[in-house]
């Protein structure tokens, strides 16, 4: 098989899984009306498949800040910070992130994906070890691969398994980076951070926590799992993204280790890519301020989360262990997941479809994400629709 034939074979395997040209992946969204509604084809749908946790995509403050930045500084920076310079906004946002996390150092990256790539590959290299949760996001895996360090996985959220693997490393723990996530994007469950920190301290390794899905969602001021657990000072490096609760694109890493600054000179995903555009930075700064002051938004978000989680649970669905803004119905077969996903769309509800091998343990997921500005009626409608569809799904194997 030549190169292009190999790609055709992979495409055929994908098509076999999703018959009749079902466009579950990369579905065309024709118009976006608000943080909760859009048009898909000729349907006005309820959006339950975004990461817009605080519902800030149309916040007037963010939109105005972005407009002003475009007018003042233009549409793009046209280059990297290293070669083409750091705008005032880049530096200001870094200061604001450092202040938010009470940390001495902070770096802004162009995406959250690159924040993980750049941080991990800057911290470890060949001969070092990374010990990562088995359900880690692809950006963590890819960062580890880019680094050249030895990659060891532990069973998802299993601290006993993590300890066993740490012990096996012997004196290599000294050059080991442990990586976990605040909220995992597939099942919405949270890392057992207190136990992970205990092990990190006992074995003397370094800990990185990706707060991509927990930023804005957990903790009084929205710092994430570090704030909810009171363990901010125990985590060495925190990464995150602007693409979820901050409603733009970009990523960050914060730390109290001065060594973080060194990454600006060695980390390719920081150096060899254009810096975020002025509008992106400006709306992120406005969103970060709203996020910090947004305890009312978090309260609404959590009301919605618990309402939908209980509705789905009551209807009989198997869900992830923790209620939260990511609520995934776990079904046995890809066919069931596809049917549920299609039926929900027929009822004007857009959610995410996740098939193996992306979903853990060979299962398939129909994943909802809840946000702060979904109304009680919208959440009730989604819960009722899931309940109505339960028997259709369970009789279909």
């Amino acid at each position: 098989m030549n190169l292009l034939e190999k790609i055709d074979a992979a495409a055929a395997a994908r098509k076999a899984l999703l018959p009749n040209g079902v466009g579950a992946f990369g579905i065309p969204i024709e118009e976006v009306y608000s943080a909760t509604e859009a048009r898909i084809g000729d349907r006005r749908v309820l959006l339950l498949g975004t990461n817009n946790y605080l519902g800030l995509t149309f916040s007037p403050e963010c939109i105005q800040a972005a407009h002003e930045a475009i007018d003042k500084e233009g549409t793009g920076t046209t280059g990297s910070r290293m070669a083409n310079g750091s705008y005032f906004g880049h530096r200001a946002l870094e200061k604001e992130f450092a202040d938010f996390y009470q940390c001495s150092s902070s770096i802004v990256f162009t995406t959250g994906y690159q924040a993980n790539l750049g941080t991990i590959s800057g911290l470890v290299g060949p001969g070092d070890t990374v010990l990562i949760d088995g359900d880690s996001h692809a950006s963590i895996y890819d960062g580890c691969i880019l680094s050249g360090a030895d990659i060891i996985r532990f069973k998802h959220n299993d601290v006993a398994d993590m300890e066993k693997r740490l012990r096996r490393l012997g004196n290599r723990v000294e050059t080991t980076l442990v990586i976990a996530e605040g909220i995992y994007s597939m099942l919405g469950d949270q890392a057992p951070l207190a136990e992970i920190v205990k092990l990190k301290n006992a074995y003397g390794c370094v800990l990185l926590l990706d707060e991509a899905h927990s930023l804005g969602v957990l903790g009084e001021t929205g710092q994430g799992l570090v704030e909810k657990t009171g363990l901010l000072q125990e985590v060495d490096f925190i990464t995150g993204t602007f693409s979820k609760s901050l409603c733009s694109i970009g990523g960050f890493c914060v730390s109290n280790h001065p060594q973080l600054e060194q990454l600006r000179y060695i980390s390719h995903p920081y150096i060899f890519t254009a810096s975020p555009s002025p509008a992106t930075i400006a709306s992120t700064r406005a969103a970060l301020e709203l996020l910090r002051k947004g305890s009312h938004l978090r309260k609404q978000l959590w009301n919605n989360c618990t309402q939908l989680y209980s509705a789905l649970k009551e209807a009989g669905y198997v869900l992830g262990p923790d209620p939260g803004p990511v609520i995934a119905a776990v079904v046995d077969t890809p066919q069931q997941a596809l049917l549920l996903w299609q039926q929900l769309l027929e009822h004007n509800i857009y959610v995410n479809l996740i098939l193996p091998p992306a979903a853990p343990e060979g299962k398939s997921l129909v994943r909802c994400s809840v946000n702060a500005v979904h109304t009680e009626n919208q959440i009730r409608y989604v819960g009722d629709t899931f309940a109505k569809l339960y028997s259709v799904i369970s009789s279909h194997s």
Partner: protein
Amino acid sequence: MTDSNYDEIMQLLCDRLSSLTNSNAQISPETNLISQLSIDSIKLLNLIMEVEDAFDISIPINALADVQTVRELVDLVHKIKSVSQ
């Protein structure tokens, strides 16, 4: 390489692979994990965790980049196990 360690690893991996694939396909050292057994990347990564536990060793998953056949997988595990003893 016919030491008992090597045979033990080969046996364990063949047993685990045949239960993972649920097929009656004959597994030989030259069997290709992906094209013949359809072992996807996640299954392979989880198998590696089991092998680590069975022999109390650490197998970096980046080393799997060079592994296509059952024999290559056994070679890798055997090499790591020998060094760790």
